[in-house]
């Protein structure tokens, strides 16, 4: 303690170079702290990559020495080869875009429509109270079970898949927006009315911004639900899509191709999830609270 004070007094009164020394010494400590955090992060990322590689290597190795039956479990190298074949000679890319397209369109329309339904509840309590139980009930209906009806109704094309994805997402989005509406601080509404606001002002300036975090929180669930809806639609009846490819490969017992489908769907799902994260960040970019 004493030595420290002495040092500071010295550096302040005598040499400016000593002040600089003191400063650089302090800065070094800070830099070291940060580099420690960076190092830990690097270790974590490296660990994650190594773990991923080990799973693939283990899968490959175990199926090569016969501990895993490669007929059922396939093998990473075969999956890559089969996948490449499906891209170059088959229609894997088109199928991927087909599935992704139906999912994203269903997801966007479902989220928008659901959010509008949920937000509309703010305007009239009577209307909201009448509608809410039906919303909850419809949420409980296993909508995938309706897939055959939808395919017959809307054909085996793109529409039936997008509609299934839409149905999967719309209710979740509506319920999320509805929770958002219910969470609006009544005093904020009161404050706005005291500033002479009409209902539409309160709606645009308080209700929608208050509900946004609630609506955004449903996006990640909804993108996965939309993908499930599309795939089931393709399972039922379709000419294109990854779901159809998997079903077809299963029927001709080409399990390697099934694995290709699973891998493509996983990657698709991760990419869309990351897209949703980005969307989430963008929608909440002004939220610093």
């Amino acid at each position: 303690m004493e030595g420290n004070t002495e040092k500071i007094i010295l550096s302040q009164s005598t040499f400016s170079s000593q002040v600089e020394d003191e400063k650089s010494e302090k800065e070094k400590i800070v830099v070291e702290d940060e580099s420690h955090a960076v190092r830990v992060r690097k270790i974590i990322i490296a660990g994650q990559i190594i773990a991923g590689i080990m799973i693939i290597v283990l899968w490959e190795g175990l199926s090569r020495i016969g501990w895993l039956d490669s007929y059922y479990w396939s093998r990473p190298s075969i999956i890559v080869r089969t996948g490449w074949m499906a891209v170059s000679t088959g229609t894997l890319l088109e199928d991927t875009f087909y599935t992704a397209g139906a999912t994203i369109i269903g997801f966007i329309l479902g989220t928008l429509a659901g959010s509008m339904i949920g937000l509309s509840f703010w305007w009239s309590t009577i209307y909201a109270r009448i509608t809410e139980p039906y919303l909850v009930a419809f949420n409980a209906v296993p909508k995938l079970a309706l897939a055959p009806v939808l395919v017959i109704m809307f054909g085996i094309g793109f529409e039936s898949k997008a509609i299934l994805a839409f149905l999967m997402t719309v209710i979740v989005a509506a319920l999320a927006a509805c929770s958002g509406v219910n969470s609006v601080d009544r005093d904020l509404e009161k404050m706005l009315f005291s500033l002479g606001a009409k209902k539409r002002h309160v709606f645009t300036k308080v209700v929608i911004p208050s509900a946004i975090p609630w609506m955004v929180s449903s996006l990640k669930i909804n993108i996965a639900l939309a993908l499930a809806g599309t795939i089931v639609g393709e399972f039922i009846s379709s000419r294109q899509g990854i779901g159809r490819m998997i079903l077809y490969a299963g029927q001709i017992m080409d399990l390697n191709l099934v694995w290709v489908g699973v891998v493509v769907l996983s990657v698709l799902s991760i990419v869309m999830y990351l897209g949703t994260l980005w969307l989430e960040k963008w929608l909440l970019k002004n939220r610093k609270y």
Partner: protein
Amino acid sequence: MIKLEVKNSSKYFEKNNNVFCALKSTDMAITEGKFVSIIGPSGCGKSTLFNIIAGLLKPSTGQVLLDGKNIIGESGRVGYMLQKDLLLPWRSILDNVILGLEIRGTSKKEARKRALPMLKKYGLNGFENHFPSELSGGMKQRAALLRTLLYDQDVILLDEPFGALDAQTRLLMQSWLLKIWGDFKKTILFVTHDIDEAIYLSDEIYIFSHRPGCIKDHVTVNLSRPRNEATFTDSLFLNLKQKLLASLAEEQEQTMRS
């Protein structure tokens, strides 16, 4: 000149089939440009009265006259600030302050241009682009009050605006409020629990009685302005404080008994 007049206003609520009276035939006449405080025990109907004047609640009987015109049920005719700052957390301080202007239809750009000098002048310089969560309680109350001021009504209702602040900040805010009041020449109606605060700030004080809420007493504060720390030890101040304390103590006793 009488700016705001409350005539024979009362409010009854029904709860579990029991009708109870939150506000009993209240009469008030507020002169233009005056600083008027209302003190009283909690649950004495002060907030009910404010909600009626602000047009957010309709009285069961009586009238509220602003410049001689009945404004019952018309919100937005007077500025109203609640105890909570009620800043929108997703808006910057500047964008919060211009809310009233925006609702009136002023463009955001124009509104910001008008608000910025006010923020600078009244202690929020450098905070205009901060978000409410980054500000201290006192700063937030300043922003909330500036929002009410910028809405530009002649009469401003303040419902315990400093109730949640610590004593030190509260003193600062009181002087700040007096300065603003001097600059803008508004008519202010101020609710508080704090007798010192009421005397220090006001020209007149109304004392409300416990349930049913009604005016029990009305005093004029003859302390000279501008007021400062010395005001707190003025003999006039102390006499008035004693009188108000006695009056409120009676009320507290009744509250305890009921």
